[in-house]
Every structure is written in C-alpha cells, then in structure tokens.
C-alpha cells in the first residue's frame, strides 16, 4: 500500500521508559509535559522518560531536542546501555535482523555492542576518552577490543581516523589531557568511528566548545555522518546543532515526546506550546 520506499530502519526504539524509583500507572498519569513535572507527587519517583519511540535509517540523523531535565540524555543513555531501562524495546537491524530487544540482553552482551555496533560521543570528552592515554592509544582501545593485534595496522588505522577528524598527526602520540576541548572532541569522534559502527549517539557534541571551534566540529560530524552512512541520534538543546545535523527530530519535555517533525518544519512551524517556546527562545 506504500508506494514510497523509505530506507528501512537501522535503529528502532519502541515505548522506551525510564523511571527512577517505584512507580504505578498513576505515577505515569501524574507526570509529563501536561503536568509540568517528571516527579510523581505520591512516590517521589522521577519519570525521566516515558513512551519514547522512533526509528532511524542508515545515513539519517534524528535530533532529540529539549532543555536539561527533558529526558533526552536519559533516552540516549538507555540506548547506549549506560543506564538501565524500565520498559520498552530497542532493536538494531544488525543484531538478529532486528528481532532481538537489546534491552533484554545481559550487561556483558550490551557491552559487546559498544565495541562495534553502537558508538557514543559524550558531551564531555573525558567521559569517552582516557585522558592519561595518547590520542592513538585511545583509538587503539576499540580496535584491540575488536581483536586487532597488529601494531602497525593499529597505528595505520588510528592515523587514518585522526586525519579524517582533522587532528594533526604529529599529536597522535601526545596524551589527550594536553589537548584543547575541541581537539579532544575530535579524538572522541575518531575513537567512536574506529570499528565502523552502524549507529552513533551524540550527546551535546559541541556544548562547551567555543563557537568557532564548535562550528568546525559540527561540520566535521556532518561530513562523517554522510561519508560513513551512519544512523545517528543527536541529542541537543541547541537548535543550530539540530539544524546542521538532522533531517527529523523529536522534542522532549518532562520525559515525554511532545512533537515529532521534519527539522526545518519544527524550526519554522512548531506546533506544541513547549516547542514554540523553545524555538522562539532560540531565535531571539
């Protein structure tokens, strides 16, 4: 019945929910965007995210927009496995053809996914890198985790990735602690792409960087997403980031998705009152 073939999803999230503390159906009903809170008045539990669903295809970037506390980072951490999830499912096309809910996999199996299926770029590069280790060494980590045992090949691949992320090669053997924020972020990107994962999650990738530095990093990310045909989820409160990187996005408020739209449509014709507030604040 569908004459338009859209590329099939590589990442599918269905009814994802995360609650901190005990909860009942009532807790859910008493929280959310309409209620203006994520906190259940009865139990004090926090409904950090509830009923979040979306699909991302290869070569596509989906934005998750919201202010801090909206639940956007929680969603990302649940998918990444950094956080346990309360309800819902996450499917990867590359795992069992998309039939397995990875949330039901063991913690160690989830960790395996982080080697070459799901890469994460954190807002703070220190979270994704070992600052005491060299740039090349940080990239050696995922490569060796994937079984690469040849020193020359590791060096070669690391230098390829570093030059692709525009880190000067003469700094490859410098300890990451000595790098500026923007440069650290580039190393984080290089490391994330080391094993060519199909899915990349980016959490506020340029927040905290100087504007000029941020622009360069964003442009780099955009180029990489295209070149590697990655399925990306970009979490940000910054609309310029969302605009630059994504074609579709969802808006989150108090843990719920309040709007889902094409990015240019969200920016020019936001519907939900909260989205309008966010967009007009960004525009001013």
């Amino acid at each position: 019945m569908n004459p338009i073939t859209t590329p099939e999803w590589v990442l599918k999230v269905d009814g994802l929910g995360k609650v901190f503390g005990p909860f009942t159906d009532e807790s859910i009903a008493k929280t959310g965007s309409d209620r203006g809170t994520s906190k259940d008045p009865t139990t004090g539990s926090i409904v950090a995210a509830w009923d979040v669903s979306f699909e991302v295809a290869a070569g596509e970037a989906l934005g998750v927009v919201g202010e801090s506390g909206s639940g956007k980072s929680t969603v990302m951490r649940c998918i990444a496995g950094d956080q346990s999830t309360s309800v819902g499912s996450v499917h990867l096309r590359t795992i069992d053809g998309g039939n397995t809910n990875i949330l039901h996999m063991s913690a160690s199996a989830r960790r395996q996914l982080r080697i070459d299926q799901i890469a994460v770029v954190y807002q703070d590069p220190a979270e994704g890198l070992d600052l005491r280790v060299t740039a090349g060494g940080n990239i050696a980590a995922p490569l060796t985790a994937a079984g690469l045992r040849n020193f020359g090949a590791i060096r070669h691949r690391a230098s390829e990735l570093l030059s692709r992320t525009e880190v000067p090669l003469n700094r490859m053997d410098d300890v990451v602690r000595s790098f500026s924020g923007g440069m650290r972020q580039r190393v984080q990107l290089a490391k994330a792409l080391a094993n060519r994962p199909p899915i990349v999650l980016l959490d506020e990738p340029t927040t905290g960087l100087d504007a000029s530095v941020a622009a360069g990093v964003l442009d780099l990310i955009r180029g990489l997403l295209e070149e590697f045909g990655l399925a990306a989820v970009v979490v940000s409160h910054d609309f310029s980031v969302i605009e630059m990187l994504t074609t579709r996005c969802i808006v989150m408020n108090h843990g719920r998705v309040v709007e889902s739209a094409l990015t240019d449509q969200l920016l020019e014709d936001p519907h939900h009152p909260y989205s309008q507030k966010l967009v007009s604040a960004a525009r001013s």
Partner: protein
Amino acid sequence: MTTLLNQLLDETVGDTSDVPFALLDEYSKREIRRAILTAVAVPGYQVPFGSREMPVARGWGSGGLQVTLGVVGPLDTIKVIDQGDDQGVNAVNLRRLIVSSTGIPETTVAAESTIVQTRHRIPEDGLDTEHILVLQVPVPEPLRGVERDMRELARMHAEADYSKMWVSLYEDRVRNGVITQSTGYPCLVNGRYVIATTPIPRWDIPKLDNAPFLSLFGAGREKRIYAVPPHTKVEPLTFDDVPFEVEQTPGATCFRCTSSMSFLVEIPGPVSRWVCSDTDWCERHEGGLK
C-alpha cells in the same frame, strides 16, 4: 567413647604429634587443594583462598609455601630456589621448614626433585611430567597497573575484556620503541585468561608454554592461587608484528661455566662479570660441558 574418637582422629589426621604433616591441618590442606583443583580446571583463573598465617612473613613466599604444603606428600623430594639459587637465604629457610615438617628428602638437582618451589626463576632444565613447579607470586593481578577498581578487574577477567592491557602495551611501544616489561610479563593462558607471570624474567616465559609439568602460582598476601596445567598454551601478550624477545647481552658468558645458553645475571664490580642465575645448572655444566 574417647578411645573411639581418638582412633578416628588417628585415622584421619595420622601423626598425632603437635605439628601436623606439612604444618597445615587437614582442613586447611583441603581448602588449598580445592582451590588448586579449581585453578587447574580453569587455567589462568585466579582462585581466591583463605590464606593462613605462615611462619614466613607475607610477601616472602607464604602463598607458594601454602601451595607446596598443600600438595606435598611423603614420597616427594623438594627443591627450593630463590632467583635460581638454592642457597639464597629465603630458599634455605623455606626448604628447612618444608623438610622439617614433612621429613621428605631435599635436592638441588631439579631432575631429582618432584616439587620445585621457586621465587622469580624457572630452572633451566630437568622439569618433566612428574614435576610440580610452585611459583611465589607477590602480585597476582596482571591488570593492576591499568585498573584499580576490584569489581572492574573482576569484570574484565570475566568478560575477557583486556583492551586496557592492550592499550598499555601500545603506549609502552609508542613511548619506548619496544614493550619494556621485563619481569612478570603478562601472558594469555589457554587462550582465555591473562596472568601475571610473577617476576620471572622473559627468558623463562617460553618454558611455561606447553610445558610437561604443572605450574602452580601462589600469592599469600593477595590470597590467590592460579595454575597452568601441563601442555597448556601460554602466550606472552604482544602484537603480531612485535616479536616477543628474551633478554640477551651479546658476548656475555658465565665466568664459571662459560655458558651463554642460560639466563645470566651481572655481578657488579670494576669489570663486568656474568654468572648463571640457576646455580645448580651452572655447577653441572662447569667446564663448558652441556
């Protein structure tokens, strides 16, 4: 009633003098043996055990001693070395302790022994299918240099996630041109667990691979026992394209036996002199005979 009890005790414990055979009571021996069996069943896995108070201070071979005392029987012959030397103070004391509590014979010739307890060296030759090599281990955790958190260490071994180790080898190579670890080189046992090979020199590492003898590693202070069963693969961790090299000093020969085929240690002095670390081996080869 008491007679029956005494009889039973006699049967189980045997020697009713104050000091049981091999110092340890039967329950201690049982626990150590169970730990050893687990260690042998899972090569390279560090088995926790209740390390007892021993007449040697912690850090002086109490773990190795407990292992030896756990496996020794009346038909064994013991050899004890420290850095290859049977006459090292530590070796002498340990041997005296073992012999006095078991009554078994001692020897310096590895081939004539059945159990060899050692600190930091493996005998150059003589170990065979009938031997148990007991190594004294100060730090059983090979990943200690790259990770401090105990739960994380347990996870890394459980999931065979040794990437932090590989990164440190990479960094070493980058910084120094070679992998500089000289003693206690980390090895992969049976393709599964990485072990600390106690501070034995690189020279001795190849002896562990596919050895005819059983190697048991005892760490008293850290309370761990691990094992490399006979004919088990032991591979030093290195990159495919960075060969594992053993120590060599070109031109060095033992001033006593003229050998260049054994592990040599340097004697400090105005002129550089070298001598075999394995004293027994040196004595048997004095004059250059092999």
